[in-house]
């Protein structure tokens, strides 16, 4: 899932792509504004002029663009991410978890007088199937975790947990953390 923040590695091609998008957005906004304000038709092409003027800045003033790029990430994207994550988690907690908690719990707090010892499952080496264990290979694929999650939800009789999937996806979308998985051989020797 693409995170909210831009890539932390500010390579030239990423900087230029970002700046081109910003220039395009500003140019389009100018054109739309001229159209909304019923200005003469020729002014609606001013957006193109804005694009032509702004876009080359990524080549001539790379340092400026780099600062703006990092400012976008640090001052806008990360702050938005924090706020959106906090709100989403509170909604989940105060609505979904609170409601589903009303349906009771399978957690055995008090024993029925006998031992609460549970034998270990030789196949899985676990005493309970409740914890969600991600299978590494599957979880690392872009949507592999959903398949694994669904499997766990049905096997552990936690079908209600499927309702959390949209929120989990949304939380990934608004995250500002990027999984960097550069290979060991990607950087050169020196």
């Amino acid at each position, binding site marked *: 899932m693409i995170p909210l923040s*831009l*890539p932390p590695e500010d*390579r030239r091609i990423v900087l230029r*792509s970002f700046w081109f998008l910003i220039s395009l957005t500003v140019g389009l906004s100018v054109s739309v504004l001229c159209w909304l304000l019923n200005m003469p038709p020729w002014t609606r092409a001013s957006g193109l002029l804005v694009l032509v003027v702004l876009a080359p800045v990524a080549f001539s003033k790379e340092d400026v663009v780099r600062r703006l790029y990092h400012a976008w990430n640090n001052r806008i994207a990360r702050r938005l991410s924090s706020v959106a994550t906090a709100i989403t988690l509170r909604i989940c907690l105060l609505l979904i978890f609170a409601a589903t908690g009303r349906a009771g719990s399978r957690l055995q707090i008090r024993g029925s007088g006998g031992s609460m010892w549970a034998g270990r499952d030789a196949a899985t080496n676990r005493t309970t199937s409740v914890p969600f264990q991600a299978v590494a290979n599957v979880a690392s694929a872009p949507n592999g975790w959903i398949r694994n999650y669904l499997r766990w939800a049905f096997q552990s009789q936690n079908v209600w947990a499927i309702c959390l999937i*949209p929120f989990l996806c949304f939380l990934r979308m608004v995250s500002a953390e990027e999984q960097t998985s550069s290979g060991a051989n*990607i950087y*050169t*020797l020196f």
Partner: protein
Amino acid sequence: MGFLRTILALVTTLIALVLLVPIALVILPFWLVSLLTRTIARALEPKFLTREGLIQFDPLFGWKARPNLNTHHLMVDLFHIRTDADGWRGEHSLAESDVVVFGDSFAAGYGVSDRHFFANLRGPQKIKPVGIGGYSMVQELLWVRQLKESLRGKLVVWFIYFGNDLYDNLMPDLRGYRKPFVRETGEDGSWEIVSSHVTAERWPLVTEGRIEGQNHLPRLGEICSETFLSGRVFSACEYLLEAGKEICQQVDARLVIVSVPDAYQLTDAGRQTLKTLAGDPDSFDARRPDNAIDGICRRVAIEFVSGQSFLDIGCYKTNDCHWNEKGHREVAKMLWHLKASRPQSVYTSGALPTPSGRLSPMESSAV
């Protein structure tokens, strides 16, 4: 209970999704910027080779450059790299070049594309770099020996990068790639080159830190201090420089040693970092490697130019130890200057000689 829980979860999920709509609408434009930036960058970014694509195993040198490449490589940012039939960068051939530069990734110009590479900048002399990432002075000496006849009458410049060259001279591998190294023979402080272990198999004794390149700063800190390691590395360096001088003398080549400081040696903050990593902070001196090479070149009577005489922190890339485009311009100017100057018959203080052969004003050591 499970059925009831599922129903409750469904109902509250729908309510929660409705509450999230305004947040999603606010987030959406910013998320689209992230998505489209990555999409455009991915579409426009050229394919690049990783480290293993640039090198190939060699039983003598450990590895050598792959020939006839025309590709990109990633080092913080992508740079375009082309190699000739021998695997070296640079537009000119070895035969037609007046200056031959031996070294590691600094000599190979890693980090900048061909048009900014010091060997390709337009100048009065043709420069041929002989180097590839990861080389230590041991491998470079072996190349000097290998290419001896091609160096006849030329200016031979040998880069010594303080970041890792001195230390790696003593190591049998670099991040798992086996390579020749030097060790003491136990007789009167002499040294020998060892290459019996060089095979294509990965060296088994490699720490994660070395693989990720985290070792070089602590080692540089140690080398800048009065430590057992610093004594060994400079003794090994002297052995290698003596051997290099002997080869160059046999073919009337003028040998000049040029030190390449690590960026950490050039700023107060960097020096403080090195000092905290040093084995003996009290004896730490960021100029120790230059002073030591200084002394070696005096004894061996080789010309020496200190990199700190023409490089500053503005010559280095940020987040990478290599030179940027400004650094390459300075290096090119230094090489042209060196070629135009008369050979110094005795060692100078690391000053850049002027074309007339006199010392430049900023350096003032007696010879």
